[in-house]
């Protein structure tokens, strides 16, 4: 039998309140793809951060080629041939590819010998079939290209084990396929790849062996031949889950939101929206597909009022709301379920109850008038109605919280999203922008959110669904538009196209004719 290149034995890691890793054993062999599968919070990333020297295990040992090792920092891990590509890229945007790759390497000294490094990078890139210009600045690269830089950075350090943390979460279908090709080439070169994911079909496609984690424990070790998506899903969540969604056909109603020729700048001052027009009707979900960073975020912000458009008009129920502020838009029934939940969606230091009425604090229901001061819009908070209302929402949306007074930041990711949904839907909005509503959620929370969105559609809400998860967009939406570099390059009903076509549109390879795009909104 082959000897493992890396062995982890009895790894325990505790964080306040949770055991992230509970006596985990893991072997990694040369030239294999090992998939670490599990829901968010199952402990996959923690385990790998321990292997990479970012965290120290509370208990347990790590062996590399049979020798016991202690990693004090990623430097030690790299010295032992272990590299990691994180979900969030650790690159300096303002520097070039080559500068990023040699960053922190002592042998390149104070006077950088970049040319030699470039030679080595080009050779490495050729070996695994990458096309990359080492002199390009990082900010000019797409997410897929940045990932390649990260992989090259690891290979440049002669690593033998490469950890990829949710590598496909930022990629288009085509880029994902490219990545898989790369992984296969790495494996041929005897590099072991640890592939962290919660996407079943990817794991089924690429892995040789699969280790399933749940709540910090290993709940399954399978060879790919032994696995199928149903088995894996069951292991992951501990019960059967529905992987398919059924959407009842429905006749859309009158137009709720109309957008005409919207243009807007991004934070960097680049034109992020280049003239966007579309309509959303009552009782329909319009999905936006696209690789993150193609103007979706800016579109959501402009519609909600967080960003001012350069040009174009926005109409809600026929009324021009382009110049209205957020407060007025909220009153007219616009709602945003933000992607940045902790930074935008909740106030972590405030209680769950307080977070549930964040936008409604001025309403007479929650604040009673005071003599004189009411003229200044200073009113007394009505604690009792607040508590009653929040209890109702906590029940209705099943928010798992010890009490309405618990601080919102103590909630888990899925419950933070429930809190936001409860608050937003609790005020009965008429048009909801759902920005990455399931990103980072575990399977059961994802399932809940998707069901809720469909339920809302049944009840006649209008929803704009922005999601990087293509299958989510295609399965939930009545109409889908694809955004690429600030433009709508395709709009269709999900049943009219193939996933491959959508992928080509998302990467700007394919584009539907103008008339075909317009037709869909009538």
């Amino acid at each position, binding site marked *: 039998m082959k000897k493992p290149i890396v062995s982890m034995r009895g790894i325990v890691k505790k964080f306040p309140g949770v055991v992230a890793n509970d006596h985990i054993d893991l072997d990694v062999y040369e030239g294999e793809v090992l998939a670490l599968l599990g829901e968010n919070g199952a402990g996959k990333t923690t385990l790998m951060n321990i292997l990479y020297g970012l965290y120290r295990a509370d208990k347990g040992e790590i062996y590399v080629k049979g020798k016991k090792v202690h990693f004090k920092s990623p430097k030690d891990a790299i010295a032992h041939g272990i590299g990691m590509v994180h979900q969030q890229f650790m690159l300096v945007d303002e520097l070039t590819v080559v500068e990023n790759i040699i960053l922190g390497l002592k042998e390149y000294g104070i006077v950088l010998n970049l040319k030699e490094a470039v030679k080595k990078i080009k050779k490495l890139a050729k070996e695994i079939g990458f096309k990359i210009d080492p002199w390009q600045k990082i900010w000019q690269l797409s997410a897929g290209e940045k990932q390649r830089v990260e992989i090259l950075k690891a290979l440049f350090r002669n690593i033998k084990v490469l950890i990829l943390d949710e590598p496909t979460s930022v990629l288009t279908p085509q880029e994902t396929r490219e990545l898989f090709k790369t992984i296969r080439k790495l494996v041929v070169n005897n590099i072991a790849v640890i592939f962290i994911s919660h996407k079943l079909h990817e794991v089924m496609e690429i892995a040789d062996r699969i280790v399933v984690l749940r709540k910090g424990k290993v709940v399954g070790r399978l060879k790919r031949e032994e696995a199928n998506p149903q088995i894996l899903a069951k292991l992951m969540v501990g019960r059967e889950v529905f992987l398919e969604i059924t959407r009842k056909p429905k006749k859309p109603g009158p137009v709720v939101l109309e957008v005409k020729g919207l243009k807007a700048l991004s934070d960097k001052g680049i034109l992020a929206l280049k003239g966007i027009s579309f309509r959303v009707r009552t009782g329909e979900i319009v999905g936006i597909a696209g690789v993150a960073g193609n103007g979706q975020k800016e579109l959501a912000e402009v519609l909600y009022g967080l960003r001012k458009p350069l040009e174009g008009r926005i109409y809600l129920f026929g009324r021009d709301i382009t110049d209205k*502020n957020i407060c007025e838009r909220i009153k007219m029934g616009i709602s945003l379920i933000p992607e940045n939940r902790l930074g935008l969606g909740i106030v972590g*230091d*405030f209680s769950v109850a307080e977070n549930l009425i964040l936008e409604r604090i*001025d309403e007479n229901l929650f604040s009673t008038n005071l003599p004189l001061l009411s003229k200044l819009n*200073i009113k*007394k908070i009505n604690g009792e109605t607040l508590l009653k209302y929040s209890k109702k929402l906590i029940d209705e949306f099943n928010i798992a919280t010890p009490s309405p007074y618990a601080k919102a930041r103590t909630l888990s990711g899925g419950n933070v999203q429930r809190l936001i949904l409860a608050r937003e839907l609790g005020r009965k909005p008429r048009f909801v922008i759902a920005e990455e509503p399931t990103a980072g959620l575990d399977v059961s929370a994802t399932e809940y959110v998707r069901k809720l969105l469909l339920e809302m559609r049944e009840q006649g809400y209008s929803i704009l669904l922005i999601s990087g998860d293509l299958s989510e967009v295609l399965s939930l939406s009545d109409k889908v538009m694809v955004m690429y570099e600030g433009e709508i390059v395709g709009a269709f009903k999900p049943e009219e196209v193939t996933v491959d076509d959508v992928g080509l549109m998302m990467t700007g390879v394919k584009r539907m004719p103008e008339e075909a795009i317009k037709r869909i909104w009538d």
Partner: protein
Amino acid sequence: MGLEIKFIERKVHPVMYVIVPLAAFSLAFLCGGILMSWAGVNPIAGYGAFISGIIGSHVKFADTLVRTTSFLLIAVGLAFALRARVFNIGAEGQYIMGAIVGTWVALTLQDHLPPALTITISLIMAIIVGGLWAGFAGYLKATLGINEIVLTVIMNWLAFKLLQWLLRGPLKNPLSEMWPMSPPVKAKIPVILPGTRLHLGFILAILIAIGGYFLMFKTNYGFKLRVVGVNPNAAKYAGYDVKKIIISSMVLSGGLAGLAGAIEILAVYHFLYEGISIGLGYTSIIVALVGKLHPLAIIPSALMFGALYNGVVYLQSALGVSYTLSKAMEGMIYLFVLISEVFLKYRIAIVRR
């Protein structure tokens, strides 16, 4: 082997909020004692004087409460600005502006109106001008994004220079010859404890602290202000008028500092001179922070600092301890209290990486 100092946040029993500052005081006194004996002063006599300066007699204790009054007013105001995460370093200038306006209005009205009315109008004007003075800085921060720390510090100088100029020009007492001081203010805020200087302003300050608590924690305004402070993005997202909240927090803060300045003139000094600017506005930042930016907790905090202030002053005058030494002791106590905050909140561990 890499060593690393880590600050680990910990749960704190409420009692610790009283014990830890007291411990800090004790330590500061210990060091202060060493300092005193080094300077040739008997520490026991020194601390005797210090304590007698605070509670030595009902007159002295009343003086402590008088000092508490200004700390309390300014710090409660600062609590609003700091809670909204607007770093108002300009309380000193706002206090000076309040003192100037309070004096000026009182001098103008005192021969025409009854004292009660003169005092009321002059206090209200001091609040308005202090509020506008600070609100201007808040406005520039909210609309143009100008750093409020730099701005308020500059405005402190402006206020002080304005004070100097007025005392040598329009507000100069013609009888004072070379001394830059204003004519006497005849309208006086009534004393509530006969034979002492304890005045009605103290009661007013306590009421304002209670009102401040209500405004901060029981009203929609306070709610929004606190949201702006802890998560301005969420505040924007929730549709709050963040600019308005930033500006109004500064107006509140400056208004109360202005009120403190006018009260100081109308109740304690009865004329305006440069000596009113003794850094109360700066010290009040510490008072507010030690009081956890909570208007009710600021009451004991202001009392503590009022006592400290008067104790040091008495130490200086009774034993002839030099000004620098007494100031050093005062500074040391602030330092210890602030450091103790860190130890209270965090467990500090040296870990091997």
